[in-house]
């Protein structure tokens, strides 16, 4: 019987099978940020186990609250900084070079097809876009990963999402993943990996694939994954050109991870995207999703464009196309947070930052900030935000605040009109 990509990666990294159905995997990359790692570090220090398995496997960043907003966040950052120095962790990103982990680490070429990756962060699934097995874990898993380079998983089943058809103008990967989550519900993919495939995914760039995989966890999935192909190889080429004689050689090597035609799936969901409209969430669960036309006209107070879901250059371009020559509606606060310094520079170079600023947006440094309601755009009680992030939980962006998740173009359209708006109305 054939194997899925996930089964192949598990087989290639198997350290142990303590009981049937549970595997201990060797890890290729252990990623760390300053919210979930400091407690792991403190605990290891306390237990006399302050060691790292292999500093070159560890990638660390201060991204959630940066620059620090108070003494507590300054302390978290300092614990990370001191730890990275103590263990000679070369790939450590601090102010000036830091950005949202799930945008920054792919940009640095750290994630490769067939890799196993963990991080103390639920959106680690983003990196499955590269054909890796990448899963969010808690602090204890992270601790063991740092110390021993292993992590335990129940062998996940795979759920295949096959995307066909062609997208209408103004409809993007974010709209697709919101529609998928509505279909699967918030726990429809628990203990499964969502494998995204079909012609729509094959035609997508890496940014869109990352947006898809980013929100797999919102359906309860262990991770999301896309099969690595020429698009993957081109993105990674600057980092792998010494490993392969040609791009074609890389592409054919990557194909060894592809799911076999007779691989088994727990479920297959086929979606024709041709009729799909821009989507938006309502309420406090990410599977509460409607076509944006059904919610059009609802009032917003703030617009947030950024995060590991949609803070990439492609997203900023899509939003800028709407904002160009227009102003943010009176009474609305617009916030743009490019996800990494490289994205920020690129946006400057392309004149996009100017478009945002001219429209009345505030442009922040790369950080998670308001996405999780910790800094840089927290909502007041009763306020509503049109956001390109990935979670609309009650209070996520600030106690008593409400978040509507949507695409960058939809968020930009809301900024201009002050109400939820179908972005296609503003596209020329």
């Amino acid at each position, binding site marked *: 019987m054939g194997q899925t990509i996930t089964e192949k990666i598990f087989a290639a990294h198997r*350290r*142990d099978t*303590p*009981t049937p*159905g*549970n595997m*201990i995997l060797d890890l290729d990359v252990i990623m760390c940020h300053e*919210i*979930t790692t*400091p*407690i792991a570090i*403190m*605990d290891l220090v306390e*237990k006399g*186990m302050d060691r790292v398995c292999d500093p070159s496997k560890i990638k660390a960043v201060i991204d*959630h*609250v940066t620059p620090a907003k*108070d003494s*507590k*966040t300054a*302390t*978290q950052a300092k*614990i990370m900084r001191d730890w990275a120095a103590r263990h000679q962790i070369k790939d450590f990103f601090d102010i000036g070079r830091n950005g949202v982990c799930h945008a920054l680490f792919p940009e640095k070429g750290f994630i490769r097809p067939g890799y196993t990756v963990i991080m*103390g*962060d*639920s959106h*680690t699934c983003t990196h499955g876009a590269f054909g890796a097995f990448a899963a*969010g*874990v*808690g*602090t*204890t*898993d992270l*601790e*063991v990963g740092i*110390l*021993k380079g*292993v992590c*335990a998983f*129940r062998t996940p089943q795979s759920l295949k999402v096959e995307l066909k058809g062609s997208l209408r103008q103004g409809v993007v990967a974010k709209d697709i993943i919101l529609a998928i989550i509505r279909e699967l519900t*918030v*726990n429809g993919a*628990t*203990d499964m990996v969502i494998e995204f495939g079909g012609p729509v995914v094959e035609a997508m760039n890496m940014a869109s694939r990352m947006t898809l995989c980013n929100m797999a966890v919102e359906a*309860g999935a*262990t991770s999301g994954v896309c099969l690595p192909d020429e698009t993957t190889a081109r993105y990674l080429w600057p980092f792998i050109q010494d490993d392969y004689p040609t791009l074609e050689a890389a592409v054919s090597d990557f194909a060894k991870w592809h799911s076999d035609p007779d691989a088994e799936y727990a479920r297959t969901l086929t979606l024709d995207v041709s009729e799909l409209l821009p989507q938006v969430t309502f309420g*406090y*669960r990410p599977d509460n999703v409607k076509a944006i036309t059904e919610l059009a006209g609802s009032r917003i107070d703030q617009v947030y464009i950024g995060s590991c879901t949609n803070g990439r250059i492609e997203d900023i371009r899509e939003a800028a196309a709407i904002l160009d020559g227009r102003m943010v509606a009176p009474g609305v606060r617009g916030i743009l947070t490019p996800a990494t310094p490289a994205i920020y520079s690129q946006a400057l170079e392309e004149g996009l930052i100017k478009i945002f600023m001219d429209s009345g947006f505030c442009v922040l440094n790369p950080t998670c900030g308001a996405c*999780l*309601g*910790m800094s840089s755009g927290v909502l007041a009680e009763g306020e509503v935000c049109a956001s390109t992030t990935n*979670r609309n*939980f*009650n*209070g*996520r962006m600030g*106690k008593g605040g409400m978040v509507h998740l949507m695409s960058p173009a939809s968020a930009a359209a809301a900024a201009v009109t002050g109400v939820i708006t179908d972005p296609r109305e503003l596209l020329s």
Partner: protein
Amino acid sequence: MKHFGGPAVFIDRDDINTDEIIPARYLTEITKKALQPHLLEDLHLEDQTFDPHSPQMEQARSLVTRSNFGCGSSREHAVWALEVNDINLVIGQSFARIFRQNMFNCGILAVELAPADLDALFALEGEVSIEVDLGQERITATPAGGQAVNCSFTLNPFDKQLVEAGGWLSYADQNY
């Protein structure tokens, strides 16, 4: 081995997420103890008000809820917030994967029950205390002055080993 369970608190809602269990504004804490006053501080229940500091909550040693408990953020702070409030047993129909793993990684119990068994627990009146027999994979829920209800559950064998080892760090340290 550790003793699991004790006085129970019942929260009749699906999909309680980790932002509700411990809001992000407390993620700047670097000790587990500091999370203690904030357990379930942002819990939102449609038809009733929830008081995270009620006497029932203060006494609780176990928590009974519905499906997909602990969804959302991977923050183990959600498990620690339970732990530092002496809750080491959560019973539900299902759990989000990361939360469930975090519970077992800390050597404490996330027990999945069949919907009918869970309904039977929710139907109990008055104060209820829940005891666990890990070897028999059985729980006994006893309402004050009422008839006890027994339910069996199945633990993933590896998760059981983690609980017996006192968590994943000590298991991994012994084995890898």
